[in-house]
């Protein structure tokens, strides 16, 4: 499904070279839920953003369903339509109603009719548990509701993969649960998911595999049981002692 080979992303900020992602090779299978954890600044988010081309790759390859993002001829828009993304800051379109947020890309990118798109949009709002908010504007919703709309918006495109970039980090604690619940449900339905998160409980419960990153490198990789209970690397042990 997703293959990254020697993926590298280097930022140059005022002559300072930052190796945000430093040679990551991994393979995410279809239907797998992969949770990426690591200290802040370890390059988790950058890695995730490389997977749908929001960051251009410095070196290496990302293959999504066999399509290489490093190839200049690849139509990024086509790839992105198949890869849903949920952001930390929700990034809903504030000038559009909730339903319009869900409908717009379906019509413009998937070329669906308005009617078809609205049916799909309403069904997804039902699924994330806020069908009554379709006519509201994002600013009238709580953070948890906004994030659920953002998930529904990404799902409306019928993506093959969903990427989550710290989806609960900007939420008040009491709203984290409702968002995680929606994500768990997605995982149960067999969606391929890559999740960057600090929610260790979620990682332990839902993940098929955990990737631990530090300084842009993939330090440890394994099942949640292996990672949380008997990590091999010293860096991972230190991190877990601090967060758990």
């Amino acid at each position, binding site marked *: 499904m997703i293959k990254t080979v020697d993926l590298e992303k280097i930022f140059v900020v005022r002559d300072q070279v930052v190796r945000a992602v430093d040679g990551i090779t991994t393979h995410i299978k279809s239907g797998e839920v992969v949770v990426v954890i690591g200290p802040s600044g370890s390059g988790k988010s950058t890695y995730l953003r490389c997977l749908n081309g929001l960051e251009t790759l410095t070196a290496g390859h990302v293959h999504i369903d066999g399509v290489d993002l490093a190839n200049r001829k690849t139509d990024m*828009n086509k790839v*992105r339509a198949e890869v849903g*993304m949920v952001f930390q800051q929700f990034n809903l*379109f*504030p000038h559009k109603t909730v339903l319009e947020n869900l409908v717009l*890309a379906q019509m413009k990118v*998937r070329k669906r009719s308005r009617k078809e798109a609205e049916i799909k949009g309403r069904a997804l709002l039902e699924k994330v548990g806020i069908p009554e908010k379709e006519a509201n504007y994002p600013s009238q919703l709580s953070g948890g509701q906004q994030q659920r709309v953002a998930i529904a918006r990404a799902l409306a495109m019928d993506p093959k993969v969903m990427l989550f970039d710290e989806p609960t980090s900007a939420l008040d604690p009491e709203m984290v649960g409702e968002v995680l619940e929606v994500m768990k449900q997605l995982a149960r339905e067999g969606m391929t998911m890559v999740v960057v998160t600090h929610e260790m409980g979620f990682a332990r419960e839902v993940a098929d595999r955990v990737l631990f990153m530090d300084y842009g490198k993939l330090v440890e990789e394994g099942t949640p049981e292996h990672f949380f209970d008997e990590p091999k690397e010293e860096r991972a042990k230190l991190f877990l002692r601090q967060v758990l």
Partner: protein
Amino acid sequence: MVLLSIVAGLWIATKRIDYTWRWERIPQYFAYHSEDVKTINFDGHVTKIDKKGDLTTVTVKNDIGGETSSFVIDTKTANISVDEYLMEGDTVGSTREWKAGPLAHGLWVTLWISAVASVIGLVIGVITGLCRVSQNLTLRQLSITYIEIIRGTPLLVQLFIFYFFLGTVLNIGRLPSGIGALGIFAGAYVAEIIRAGIQSIPKGQMEAARSLGMNVPQAMVYIILPQAFKRTLPPLAGQFISLIKDSSLVSVIAITDLTKSGREVITSTFAVFEIWFVVAFLYLILTFTLSQVVAWVERRLAVSD
């Protein structure tokens, strides 16, 4: 209280210089009752007079050819009778109607010059603003050059260049060159406003749009520009209000706008004070209406806040 004392002071000051206010002479320069005299261009006899309320139709038969023509005139001016002989050039009667005076005409010219220039300015501004934030270096440099040149030279000088140089070389009239200069002038400022608006939209909006598979133009049109437009509405309104006021400069290339009409009326009335007050008030009406319209649009767009 403050305003009252200022007005009182000015009134006393004008008293002391023996200025005679003639406000009553102003209205006729807005609209006047003009008389349209109908004369006959052949010799003939009146065959029929048909009175219908205020209007009367007079039918006259040509003595030589035998063909008839009819004239519609005001009943009050109809002092001829059936079978009366009329010679070529005689008056059959007249009609009166309201006609726009020079001030009303000038107001209209100012209004539509400003409107057309605003539309041109907005179109140029949006395109240049987009070029200004584009990834393409050439487009960016071109837009910066345009903005710097226009912002760095006086509008009056631009008008002269447009009219005397471009107008002569490209053979365009004074109206198109006046409107063009105003539009291009406004475009440079609008471009900077639009650029600021686009850059004020959080990066996440573009990323969210792109992550849904939209291409850059789609994201711009459906996501970024509508939000930027909403944010830039207050400075844009200010810019277009400026444009209405700056349009008074086109009077120097002999376009009969409100300012020029005012000057023309002064030459025939010598009511200098009154006319300039009236002209200022008319500009105020235009700009105030525009700012009210913008305030209304702002309230409409505020529903999503």
